[in-house]
C-alpha cells in the first residue's frame, strides 16, 4: 500500500471549544490509483488534504506514506517528505509572480537537492515540454492563461517525481472547458502510473477519477 490511514482524527481548539474536523478516518490508496476525495465545504476534506499533504499532523491515528510513518515526524522531516514524495496542485495555482515558468517549475529542486543548476534547468525544460509549454518557458504567470498556469503548476508538482500528486480543486479557478482539459491531463498522467489524489466538491470533476471517497462531517461515507 502506498498510503494507509488508520483512525485519523483531527481536533481544532478554538478558545475553550474543541471542534472535531476528522473523526476516525481509515482508508488505503494503492500505487497508481486515481482517487477523488469528495465532500461539501466543512466536511473535513481540506483538513484531510493537509494531513495527506504532510502540511499538518493529525491529533491521533496513524498515517503511513510509502512505508514512512508520518505522524512521528517533526517540521523539518515533514518538509523533506513534502519535497520528495508529494506534488501539490492548488486551486489558485500558487505560482511565484514575476518569476518565469521555468523558474517556477525548478523551485522544488532548490530544496534538499544536489543537482547542478544545469541539470535542474534541463529537467524543468523536459517537464514543461512534456506538458506542452515548450514555447512558454520564459513567460511570467501573468502572461499565461489560467490553463497554462495550472499546467506550469502541474509541471512543478511532477518535477521531483513524487509518490503522489495532491490536487486541491485544480479546476476551481478556470472555465469548464479548461477544467476538462486539466482533468484529461490528470487521467493521462495516471495512465503513466502516477498516483493522483483529487480533492473536490464537484461531482463531474470527481467522475474523472477511478475511485471516489466521500467524506461528510469528518467521516468516510
Amino acid at each position, binding site marked *: 500500500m502506498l498510503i494507509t490511514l488508520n483512525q485519523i482524527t483531527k481536533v481544532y481548539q478554538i478558545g475553550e471549544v474543541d471542534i472535531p474536523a476528522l473523526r476516525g478516518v481509515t482508508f488505503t490508496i494503492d500505487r497508481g490509483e486515481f482517487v477523488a476525495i469528495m465532500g461539501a465545504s466543512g466536511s473535513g476534506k481540506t483538513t484531510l488534504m493537509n494531513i495527506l499533504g504532510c502540511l499538518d499532523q493529525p491529533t491521533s491515528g496513524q498515517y503511513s506514506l510509502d512505508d514512512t510513518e508520518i505522524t512521528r515526524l517533526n*517540521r523539518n522531516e515533514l518538509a523533506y517528505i*513534502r519535497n520528495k514524495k508529494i506534488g501539490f496542485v*492548488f486551486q489558485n495555482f500558487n505560482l*511565484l509572480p514575476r518569476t518565469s515558468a521555468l523558474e517556477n517549475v525548478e523551485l522544488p529542486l*532548490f*530544496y534538499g537537492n544536489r543537482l547542478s543548476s544545469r541539470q535542474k534547468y534541463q529537467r524543468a525544460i523536459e517537464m514543461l515540454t512534456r506538458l506542452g509549454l515548450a514555447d512558454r518557458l520564459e513567460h511570467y504567470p501573468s502572461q499565461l492563461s489560467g490553463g497554462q498556469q495550472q499546467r506550469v503548476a502541474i509541471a512543478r508538482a511532477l518535477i521531483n517525481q513524487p509518490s503522489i500528486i495532491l490536487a486541491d480543486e485544480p479546476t476551481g479557478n478556470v472555465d469548464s472547458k479548461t477544467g476538462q482539459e486539466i482533468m484529461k491531463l490528470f487521467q493521462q498522467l495516471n495512465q503513466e502510473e502516477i498516483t493522483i489524489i483529487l480533492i473536490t466538491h464537484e461531482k463531474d470533476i470527481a467522475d474523472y477519477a477511478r475511485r471516489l471517497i466521500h467524506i461528510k462531517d469528518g467521516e468516510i461515507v
Partner: protein
Amino acid sequence: MSLFLTLRVALRALIRNKVRSILTMLGIIIGIAAVIAVIAVGQGATVMIQEQIASMGDNPLIIFPGSARVGGFRFGAGTRSTLTVQDAEAIIKECPYVKAVTPIIRAGGQIIYQDKNWSSGIEGVAPSYLEVRNWNLKEGNLFTDSDVKSATKVCLLGATVAKELFDNEESVGKTIRIRNMPFRVIGVLEKKGSAAFGHDQDNTIIAPWSTVSRVLQRSSFNEVNQILASVTSIKMLEPAKKEISAILRQRHRLSQGTEDDFSITDATEITNAITSISRLMTLLLVVIASISLIVGGIGIMNIMLVSVTERTREIGLRMAVGARGKDILLQFLVEAVVLAGIGGVFGIFLGYGAAQIISNANNWPVLVSTDSILLAFVFSSVVGIFFGFYPAWRASRLNPIEALRYE
C-alpha cells in the same frame, strides 16, 4: 538551498522592488558614508598634526623665558627676558642629550625689494638653527659663526617670502631692505608648509641673531625670545629637560625653593593634547554616525517585515514544496544582508567622495584607510544580520497551511 542560489533569489526580490530597496539602502548609505568620511577626516587631521610636530624638528624642546613678577603680581610666560644667548651656548656645551641648540630672537617688519613689499617675521638665530628644525636649504648658503660674531647683514628667505618678493626669480645675491636696513640674501629655505596651528612656517626670514639684536632691535643685550633645542632621541626628552633645568637654574643663580624663571615644553605634550582632542572629536562624530546607521537598520527591519507579510503566500508555497524553516530564515536574512551590504558599498564610495571634497575644500589631508573600509563593510553586514533576523525568523515560523491561504 545553496548560498549562491539564495543570494540570487535575494537579489531578484530586491530588484523587483527597486525604489523601495534603494530608499531602504539610503539609510545605510548615509550612515556608512558618514562613518567613512568622519574617520578619514579624523585620521587625516591626526597625521597632519604629527607631520607638523615633526616639522618643528627632531625631538624639539622649547625653552621660554619665565614670567615677570612685580611684587606679588605675576605675568605670563615670556613677559620677562631671562634667557640669553649665553644660556643657549651653555646648554649645548653642558647637556649631553642635546645635539643642537639655537637661540631665537624675533623681530618683524616690512621687507622691500625694488617695487615689491611684504610683511613677515624675522628670526635671529644661530647657524645650528636649520639642524635643530630639521630644515634644508633650497639654494645658496647658510651664514657662519663669523657672520654671527660680526653681525653681518645677511639673511635667508622662507619659501613664501621668496615667492612674494622675487616671484620665482633668482634671489640669492640680491639685496632686500628690512626696516630700511639693507640685507644681502644668501640663501632660500625649502618649503615646509603650515604649522600645527595653521600659521605659515615659510613666511619667515632668518638672519644671524646678533644682527637681529643689534641692527633691528638696537639692543646691546643678548636676550632671546626662545631657545630651541633638539634632543638626541625621544627617550632622552625627560633627562634632557631635567639637565637643562639644572643648568639654567645654576646659571640664573636660583636658590632652592625659588621658582624657575623659564619653562621647558616638549612637543610631545602639544602632540598629545591635540591628538586627544582630535580623537575625542572623531569618537563623538563616529557615535553620531553610528546612530544614523542604527536608524538605517531599523528601516531595513521595517521593510523586511512588510516584505514578509506581502510574500506570505510565497513563503507558504516554498514550505509546501519542501523549504524548511531555516531555508526561509536564510532567504530573508540574506536579503536583509544584501540590502545592507550593497548600501554599505555605496556608502563607502559616497564617504570616500565626501572625504575627498572635504580635503579639497580645506586643504586638509584625508586618509581613507582600508581598515575603515573593512570596518564599514563588516558593520553594515552586521546591521543587516541584526535587523534582518527578526523579520526572517517570523517568516520561518509561519504555518504553511495558513500562509498558503493568506490573501
